[in-house]
C-alpha cells in the first residue's frame, strides 16, 4: 500500500515501526499535491518547504522517543480560516490576501504538538459563507469524484484534499454544516463536535455561537483519533469547556446492541432525493441488524431552523467582520477621501458578494427597531429547537438522517439562488443552533457515482455514542472506495 492510500492511523503506525518516515510521508503527499492540484485546487497555500522542515524535526523526535502519539508524522491540511503563525491565512477572501498571522490557532497547535505535519491551507467558501466552495476568491475546488461537481462547503478544500489523497486528514470548521456536508459530497468522514469541545482561539470568527472546528478523515477511526488530539480546554476561548474524558478512540467498538436510534420523519419529506433516502434508510437497517432499536419519530420545527440560523449567523457575522477595516491587516483601497470612505471602499472591494449579503442582512436584523422582531425572535426559536432535541434525546441515543438533500451539485448551479442554496442546509443547521455533536460518513453512491452521506446526531457531550454507532455501521458497510480507485 502506498503512503497516499493509507489511513492516518496506518501511516503513523508505518512511521512508528520504521517502514517509512515522516519525511517520506510528507514528500509523498507533496508529490500527490503537485500532481493533482491543477485539477482540483484543494489548497490556497501549499507550504512544501515548511512541511519538509517540520517532517525532519518530527522524525528526529519520533526516533528519540519523544513523540509517541497516534498521529505523529502524519501530513495534515488545515482550512484557511485557522491562523497559522508565519503562514498566509486568507479565509479565501481578497480582504486577507496578504495576512500572515503572528500566532497559531489552538487546535492547530494541538496537532503540531502531537507531531502532525502541516502541508498547507485549504480552500473554502469566503469566510466560511457558502455550501460549495465557489465563493472563494482563489478559484473553485473540484470534487475528486467528478471534477464537474462541487466538493461542498464551506470546508470543501479540506474534504476534497482528504478524498483526493492530497493529505492524510484535515481540519475544517462547521457553522451550519460546513464539515459534514462537504464530507458527505466527497465520500469522507467529518465530525462537528459539541460546541466548546475544540478551542476556537485562532479560528477567524463567522458566527461565534455556532462555529466549531472538527476533523475530516478517511474513516471513523482516523476521525476519532484526530478529535482526541484537537479537543482541549483553552482559557483563551471563553466558551471552551473542560471535558473529562476526551479519548474518543476508546469508543471505536463494533457494537450497537440496545442502542436507541431515532429517525425523524421530518428529515424524509419533500426535497429529499430518492437515492439519498434509500441509502440512508438502508444504513439504518444495517444498524438495526447489528442490534440497534430503530424507530421513526417527529422531531418538529425542522423548517424553522434555516430562517433562525440565517438571522443569527448573519447578525454575528456583521459584528465579527467589522474588524476588517483596512487598518491593522489585510486589504486597503488605493484611493479614498478620509477615514470612513477608506473603511467603506476597502470593505466593498475586499469582500465578495455572499459575504456582503450576509453582513447587510446582519446589520439590518441588529438595527434598532428590528432587533426584537428578527434577532431576538430567532434566539427564542433557537430555544424551542434546543427543547425539541432535548425531548428527542430523552428517547434516543442517536438521531439518524441524511446530511444533505442531494449529492454534490454541478459547478455553477448553486449561487444564482441564495435561498435555494440555504435550503440545502436543512438537515445540518439545527445541530449548530443546539450545540450538538454530529458525524457524517459515506453510506453509498448515487447513479452518477457520487457519494451519499449518512448523518448521526448525538446529545451534547455524547460524541462517543456517535463514534461507536458510526464505527459499527462502517464495519457492516465494508470498505468505501476512494475516487482514485473509481475515477479514471
Amino acid at each position: 500500500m502506498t503512503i497516499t492510500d493509507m489511513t492516518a492511523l496506518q501511516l503513523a503506525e508505518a512511521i512508528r515501526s520504521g517502514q517509512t518516515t515522516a519525511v517520506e510521508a510528507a514528500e509523498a503527499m507533496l508529490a500527490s499535491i503537485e500532481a493533482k492540484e491543477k485539477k482540483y485546487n484543494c489548497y490556497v497555500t501549499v507550504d512544501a518547504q515548511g512541511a519538509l522542515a517540520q517532517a525532519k524535526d518530527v522524525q528526529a523526535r519520533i526516533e528519540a522517543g519523544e513523540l509517541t502519539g497516534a498521529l505523529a508524522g502524519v501530513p495534515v491540511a488545515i482550512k484557511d480560516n485557522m491562523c497559522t503563525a508565519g503562514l498566509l491565512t486568507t479565509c479565501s477572501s481578497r480582504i486577507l490576501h496578504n495576512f500572515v498571522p503572528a500566532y497559531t490557532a489552538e487546535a492547530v497547535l494541538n496537532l503540531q504538538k502531537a507531531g502532525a505535519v502541516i502541508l498547507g491551507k485549504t480552500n473554502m467558501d469566503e469566510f466560511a459563507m457558502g455550501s460549495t466552495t465557489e465563493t472563494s476568491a482563489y478559484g473553485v475546488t473540484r470534487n475528486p469524484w467528478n471534477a464537474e461537481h462541487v466538493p461542498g462547503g464551506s470546508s470543501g478544500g479540506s474534504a476534497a484534499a482528504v478524498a483526493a489523497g492530497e493529505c492524510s486528514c484535515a481540519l475544517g470548521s462547521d457553522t451550519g454544516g460546513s464539515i459534514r456536508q462537504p464530507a458527505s459530497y466527497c465520500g469522507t468522514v467529518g465530525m462537528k463536535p459539541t460546541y466548546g469541545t475544540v478551542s476556537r482561539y485562532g479560528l477567524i470568527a463567522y458566527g461565534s455561537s455556532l462555529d466549531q472546528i472538527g476533523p475530516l478523515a478517511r474513516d471513523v477511526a482516523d476521525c476519532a483519533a484526530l478529535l482526541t488530539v484537537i479537543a482541549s480546554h483553552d482559557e483563551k476561548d471563553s466558551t471552551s469547556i473542560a471535558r473529562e474524558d476526551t479519548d474518543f478512540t476508546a469508543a471505536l467498538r463494533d457494537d450497537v446492541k440496545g442502542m436507541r436510534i431515532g429517525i425523524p420523519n421530518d428529515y424524509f419529506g419533500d426535497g429529499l432525493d430518492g437515492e439519498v433516502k434509500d441509502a440512508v434508510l438502508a444504513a439504518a437497517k444495517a444498524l438495526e441488524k447489528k442490534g440497534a432499536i430503530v424507530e421513526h419519530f417527529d422531531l418538529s420545527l425542522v423548517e424553522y431552523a434555516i430562517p433562525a440560523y440565517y438571522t443569527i449567523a448573519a447578525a454575528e457575522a456583521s459584528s465579527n467582520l467589522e474588524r476588517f477595516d483596512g487598518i491593522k491587516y489585510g486589504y486597503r483601497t488605493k484611493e479614498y477621501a478620509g477615514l470612513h470612505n477608506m473603511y467603506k471602499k476597502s470593505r466593498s472591494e475586499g469582500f465578495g458578494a455572499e459575504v456582503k449579503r450576509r453582513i447587510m442582512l446582519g446589520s439590518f436584523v441588529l438595527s434598532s427597531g428590528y432587533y426584537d422582531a428578527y434577532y431576538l425572535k430567532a434566539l427564542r426559536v433557537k430555544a424551542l429547537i434546543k427543547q425539541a432535541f432535548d425531548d428527542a434525546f430523552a428517547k434516543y441515543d442517536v438521531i439518524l438522517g441524511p446530511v444533505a438533500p442531494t449529492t454534490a451539485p454541478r459547478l455553477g448551479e448553486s449561487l444564482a439562488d441564495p435561498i435555494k442554496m440555504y435550503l440545502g442546509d436543512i438537515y445540518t443547521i439545527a445541530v449548530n443552533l443546539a450545540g450538538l455533536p454530529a458525524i457524517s460518513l459515506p453510506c453509498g453512491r448515487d447513479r452518477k457515482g457520487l457519494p451519499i452521506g449518512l448523518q448521526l446526531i448525538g446529545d451534547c457531550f455524547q460524541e462517543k455514542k456517535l463514534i461507536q454507532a458510526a464505527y459499527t455501521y462502517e464495519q457492516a458497510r465494508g470498505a468505501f472506495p476512494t475516487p482514485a480507485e473509481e475515477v479514471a
Partner: protein
Amino acid sequence: MANIISDETIEYVGILAKLELSGEEREQAKSDMGRMLDYIDKLGELDTTGVEPMSHVFPVQNVFREDVVTNGDEREALLANAPEQKDGMFVVPKTFA
C-alpha cells in the same frame, strides 16, 4: 414580495455595515434582503410568548482570569500586516479636518 426595501433603508444599512454599493449592487441587495426577510418572517408563525432568547446553549457565566500579561512583545509581527505603518504605529487617514 412582502418586504420592500426602500432606498433609504439600504442606504442606512450600508452605513451600519460600512459598505459602499454600486448602483447595480444596491438594486440586487434590495431584492436579496427583501427575499431573505420574507423567508425569515416564517419565524412569526411560531408563538414564542414566554420563551427566553437563548444566546448560548450552555449556562455559561463570564470567564475571568487574573489580569497578568502572559504574551510577549509581538509588535513587529503584528505591525508587519498593516497596510501602512510608521514609527511602530498604524497609519490611519486623517480623522479630523
